């Protein structure tokens, strides 16, 4: 924790990282638009969607929403506010509420882009995605004070925020610091002492640098128990939507997906429609607020499991592609005859994650339960997790 607090106090944090990531984003955006010279697929899009994107949920577990402090979009918003210093109003309530629904639509649109438009291998679409995120942050930063985009509008931020309940780190009130922990300096409009919304804390260090009596500490939730406050309707829908998208993404990487498509395509005669309908079918379940809250550990575990698949199975190919494109390796490859494989250590890790997710679900459900926790409730609560375990027991592909 000391090194983490020292990092937050450092004058280079987070600006140095933000500059690096902005440069990286611009460079990757440029490369994503270039024709492929030697690699099999565009190395820029592959690096973004097969390395950075699956790595993010793992960073949330260890470092909370730290990515949001380093994010190039948020950084550009901060910089334009410094470039054009003026008194900006607080975002009104309708903007805040509208923003959360915008985030939900953004998650749905991103999921659809992956499923129906192959975002992970589409250079121009990737650039559009990155540009929209950046423009959203910049425009809102010009209009309102602090990080309105990150707090209410960003689809990625909302997702990471939900997962950050399970993070090992959080900023809490502490005896160090010469000012009381009021949260007035917080650009995320939250308070480090308000654990109700600590998922909005992005570990940017502004409150620490302002001398408030706060510090980064371990959340110790595995000792003290999970404390997940109630979700808004939007957040509950987000969890439900995330579960649907991740379940479809996981299914898509198994041979079960081929069975579905060979059945669905003669019916729809349209690939994207068949895929979208299947995805809607899996993700159409409306979950009430309480159940969505309980579902967070499983959704996070599922996200980690599918991300592990991309990282372990997909990223060596990405790194090879980058090396080939740079001329460090000779081009050409022999793809496997079968795209589906079982990597036992990876499979064991994924099943372990899902088991933890189910355990987390049952734990949270038991906490809020009034009546006794019978086997029927146990079965229905564990059902989504068990279905996901069955899916992950299938051989899986390295690419979608």
């Amino acid at each position, binding site marked *: 924790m000391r090194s983490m607090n020292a990092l937050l106090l450092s004058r280079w944090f987070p600006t140095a990282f933000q500059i690096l990531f902005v440069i990286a984003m611009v460079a990757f955006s440029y490369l994503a638009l270039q024709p492929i010279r030697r690699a099999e697929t565009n190395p820029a899009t592959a690096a973004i969607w097969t390395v950075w994107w699956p790595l993010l949920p793992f960073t949330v577990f260890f470092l909370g929403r730290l990515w949001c402090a380093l994010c190039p979009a948020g950084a550009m918003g901060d910089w334009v506010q410094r470039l054009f210093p003026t008194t900006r109003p607080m975002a009104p309530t309708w903007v805040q509420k509208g923003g959360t629904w915008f985030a939900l639509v953004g998650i749905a649109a991103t999921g659809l882009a992956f499923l129906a438009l192959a975002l992970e291998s589409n250079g121009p679409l990737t650039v559009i995605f990155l540009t929209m995120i950046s423009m959203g942050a910049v425009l809102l930063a010009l209009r309102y004070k602090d990080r309105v985009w990150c707090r209410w509008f960003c689809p990625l931020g909302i997702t990471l925020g939900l997962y950050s309940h399970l993070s090992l780190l959080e900023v809490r009130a502490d005896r160090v610091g010469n000012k009381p922990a009021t949260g007035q300096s917080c650009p995320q409009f939250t308070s480090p002492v308000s654990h109700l919304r600590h998922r909005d804390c992005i570990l940017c260090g502004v409150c620490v640098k302002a001398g408030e009596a706060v510090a980064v500490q371990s959340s110790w939730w595995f000792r003290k128990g999970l404390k997940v406050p109630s979700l808004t309707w939007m957040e509950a829908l987000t969890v439900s939507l995330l579960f649907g998208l991740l379940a479809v993404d996981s299914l898509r990487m198994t041979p079960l997906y081929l069975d579905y*498509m060979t059945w669905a395509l003669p019916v729809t005669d349209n690939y994207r429609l068949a895929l979208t309908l299947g995805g809607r079918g899996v993700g159409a379940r409306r979950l009430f607020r309480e159940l969505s809250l309980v579902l967070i550990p499983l959704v996070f575990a599922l996200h980690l499991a599918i991300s592990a698949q991309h990282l372990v199975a997909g990223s060596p190919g990405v790194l090879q592609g980058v090396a080939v494109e740079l001329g460090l390796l000779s081009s*050409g490859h*022999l793809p496997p005859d079968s795209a589906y494989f079982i990597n036992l250590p990876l499979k064991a890790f994924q099943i372990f994650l899902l088991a933890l997710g189910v355990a987390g679900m049952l734990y949270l459900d038991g906490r809020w339960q009034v009546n006794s926790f019978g086997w029927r409730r146990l079965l229905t609560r564990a059902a989504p997790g068990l279905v996901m375990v*069955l899916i992950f027991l299938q051989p899986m592909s390295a690419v979608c």
Partner: protein
Amino acid sequence: MAKAGWVVILFFALSALVVACGRDRTTYGDLPDYAFRSEAALSGYKTAVKHRALLTRLPCYCGCGLEPRYMSLADCFFDSDSGYNAHAANCAVCLEEAEDAALWYGQGMSLSEVRQGIDQKYQERGPSTRTPPITLGEEVAQ
């Protein structure tokens, strides 16, 4: 009632999974199931079926030429023994080449022009298959 509904849903979901796992691989038309891996794969295999004769005269630059059985782009999609080859379903280069070849041929380019275009665009993507060169005036066999 809600609990019974949950049990029913779970039963059907598990049954569907078990049935799906045990089901024999069927085809959509003549296409094998691996052609449905992605929209690009499906489009590629359909293109290959339609332009098989064209693809037999074009080299593949994905690197498959390192194996002696791959003599042309068509060999990435078709297998002399079982009909289809899963190779192209897992290779973006093969799928791209097939789409480009079909597009250019459809735009009225001659066989040698298509071959030239493929050679120019893909030669850095990997070693070529040992596809015989196009002779003067040669056209795609119908």
